[in-house]
């Protein structure tokens, strides 16, 4: 990723909102996905029981992480899969580079993995002279544009057909001005076909790792994970350690929830079960911590690790839809990203828990019942207490608290405030007041309710 100055969420949102028509399009597009989710959910009378079951299974996982991971490692090893443990992103990247080198390869095909985004694997490998081609169509598009994904399920959702057409014209030689999805997809298909056939190493993500079998499941709509893995001599699967589930039968809960929550489909087109390398193939699983055990140790935030990366919270979030994925300057955007990112770097991500109105829609759509908006509130408390807020805000809040906890000061301030608004509105109604930029101030009454009550009721 380029090293240019990272804007905080509010400033990035100002940039995004400079093109209001595009914001409307982005909002409508993602709202459409939300409504598809609603329609899919309406078909399942036991939806809320499914959510509860998933939540309880994941709670069990969080409380038994150590044992389940050991069980998974034993069973996977018995099946001939090599397990690697990575404490952080750097170790994850180094392990993968090592596997690629051992295979004598200098290029790799990779299906969707948000973990590798989190660890910045692509840039690391490119710097080491390894070529990486993302095979998920959306990811391939943003990769050509040298952008990160803006959404964890729909990586190129910030781009219109015309923008994709321009990108393909530049990188794949398609006709200039082409916007026909069929034509553009076919071009990508031909380009990726060649990639699949010539890469010796393929990397996939992991949606679910099953402790009792040592196998794992990868969900895609394009079959690109399968194409990569089945044609390569070496299959590397990268997973955050929270992807573990105890038993194969639990897939019956999670697979029903995942795609309905994500896109409103009953199930992903491909739910591929990998158990062992085929004869002659190598299979590796890299299990990554990268701050997860720290998060597991935070009582208020540990259950963020229940996340199955469906992105329902992004699609429903009125702020995400109107600020775009890049405004979150983190691999995982949206409400879930805003409760995960401060764990990785409090200073860098202190703005994210404030990029929310705490409307609570995210928690309601979450298929594993993470209390996302409550955690946003709690992160705000942690971040301000630890001093990650601007000093001016602390001063202002202390002053506000002093006024509001004193009935006398409160009434005085109210009187002065209303007086200023009534008699000298210019002091408030100017460009320095972020309320007034695009909104009128409320009309100040001559007396407060308190005064009215004293004058009319008390006697």
């Amino acid at each position, binding site marked *: 990723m380029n090293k240019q100055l990272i804007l905080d*969420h*509010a400033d990035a*949102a100002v940039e995004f*909102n400079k093109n209001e028509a595009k914001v409307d399009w982005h909002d409508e597009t993602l709202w459409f996905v939300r409504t598809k989710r*609603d329609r899919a*959910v*309406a078909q399942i009378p036991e*939806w*809320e029981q499914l959510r509860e079951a998933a939540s309880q299974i994941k709670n069990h996982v969080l409380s038994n992480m150590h044992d389940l991971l050991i069980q998974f490692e034993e069973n996977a090893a018995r099946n001939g899969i090599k397990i690697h443990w990575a404490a952080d992103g750097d170790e994850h990247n180094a392990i993968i580079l090592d596997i690629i080198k051992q295979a004598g390869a200098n290029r790799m095909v990779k299906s969707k993995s948000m973990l590798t985004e989190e660890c910045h694997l692509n840039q690391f490998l490119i710097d080491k002279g390894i070529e990486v081609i993302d095979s998920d169509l959306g990811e391939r598009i943003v990769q050509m544009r040298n952008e990160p994904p803006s959404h964890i399920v729909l990586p190129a959702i910030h781009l219109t057909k015309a923008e994709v057409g321009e990108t393909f014209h530049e990188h794949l030689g398609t006709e200039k001005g082409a916007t026909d999805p069929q034509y553009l997809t076919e071009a990508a298909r031909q380009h990726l076909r060649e990639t699949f056939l010539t890469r010796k190493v393929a990397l996939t993500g992991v949606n679910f790792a099953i402790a009792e079998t040592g196998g794992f499941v990868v969900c895609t709509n394009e079959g690109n994970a399968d194409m990569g893995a089945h044609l390569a001599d070496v299959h590397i699967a990268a997973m955050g350690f929270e992807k573990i589930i105890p038993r194969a039968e639990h897939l019956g809960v999670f697979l029903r929830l995942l795609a309905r929550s994500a896109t409103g489909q009953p199930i992903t087109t491909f739910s591929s079960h990998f158990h062992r390398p085929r004869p002659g193939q190598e299979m590796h699983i890299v299990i990554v911590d990268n701050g997860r055990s720290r998060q597991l140790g935070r009582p208020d935030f540990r259950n963020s690790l229940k996340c199955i990366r469906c992105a329902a919270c992004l699609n429903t979030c*009125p*702020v995400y839809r*109107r*600020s775009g994925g890049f405004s979150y300057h983190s691999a995982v955007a949206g409400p879930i990203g805003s409760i995960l990112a401060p764990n990785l770097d409090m200073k860098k991500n202190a703005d994210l*828990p*404030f*990029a*929310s*109105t*705490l*409307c*609570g*829609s995210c*928690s*309601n*759509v979450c298929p594993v019942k993470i209390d996302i908006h409550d955690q946003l*509130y709690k992160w*705000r*408390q942690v971040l*301000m*207490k630890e001093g990650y*807020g601007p000093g001016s*805000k*602390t001063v202002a*809040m*202390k002053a*506000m*608290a*002093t006024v*509001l*906890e*004193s009935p006398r000061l*409160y009434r005085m301030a*109210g009187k002065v*405030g*209303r007086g200023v608004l009534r008699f000298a509105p210019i002091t408030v109604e100017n460009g320095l007041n*972020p*309320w007034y*930029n*695009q909104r*009128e101030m*409320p009309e*100040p*009454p001559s007396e*407060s*309710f*308190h005064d*009215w*009550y004293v004058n009319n*009721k*008390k006697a």
Partner: protein
Amino acid sequence: MKVGLFIPCYIDQFYPNVAIATLKLLEKVGCDVSYPLQQTCCGQPMANSGFEHLTGGCNENFVRNFADFDYVVSPSGSCTLHIKHHLHSTNEEAATGIRSRIYELTEFLTDVLKVTSLDATFPYKVGLHQSCHGQRGLHLAQMSELVVSPPFSKPVQLLNLVNGIELIQLDRRDECCGFGGTFCVTEEAVSVKMGKDRVADHLRHGVNYITGVDVSCLMHMEGILKRANSAVEVKHIAEILTATL
């Protein structure tokens, strides 16, 4: 039944008519209502900004004012929710009591008083803004995300008792307006865009008024309506439930 009237600070200062309507409504349905004169604020402006640790003074003041009532009632879902979740005190027993006895106005009318008739008339097209904290925090109405649960709405149940009113259906019936407390200034761009989009939904359906259970959301949308020189006005639900010709 002794009811303590909790009027949030910005309603006290900027929307006294909403407080007056709330008082009249509660008296009309037979409550013995008092407004404790030393009340100020629930502390939410600090807490939502990450400074809940500075709200101790507000909490103590709140407890001093409201410990002695059978019920505490407020024309705000958001401030009610804040007290319900976050009120603590050196007198924790009193704080716990208040947390369990505080109600937002419409839920108090439907759930405690079980009001089935109101002598009110408001012959206009009205859009209801479902404020999030009342909606998803206090469960004042069925939430659009919880698709399989049966539909209900406490504010609509009351508005349906008003003569002449015509309630419109929104395209997005419970999307946030973008007020969000200090969010409305710290994230001005998104806040205003959300507000404009909410207002547009109401305007598309030809409303004369936008109503709701939280004046904060209405104040935000009013600011946007006025900037656009719209003839559409906002009214708190208490003003409509007490309206006469």
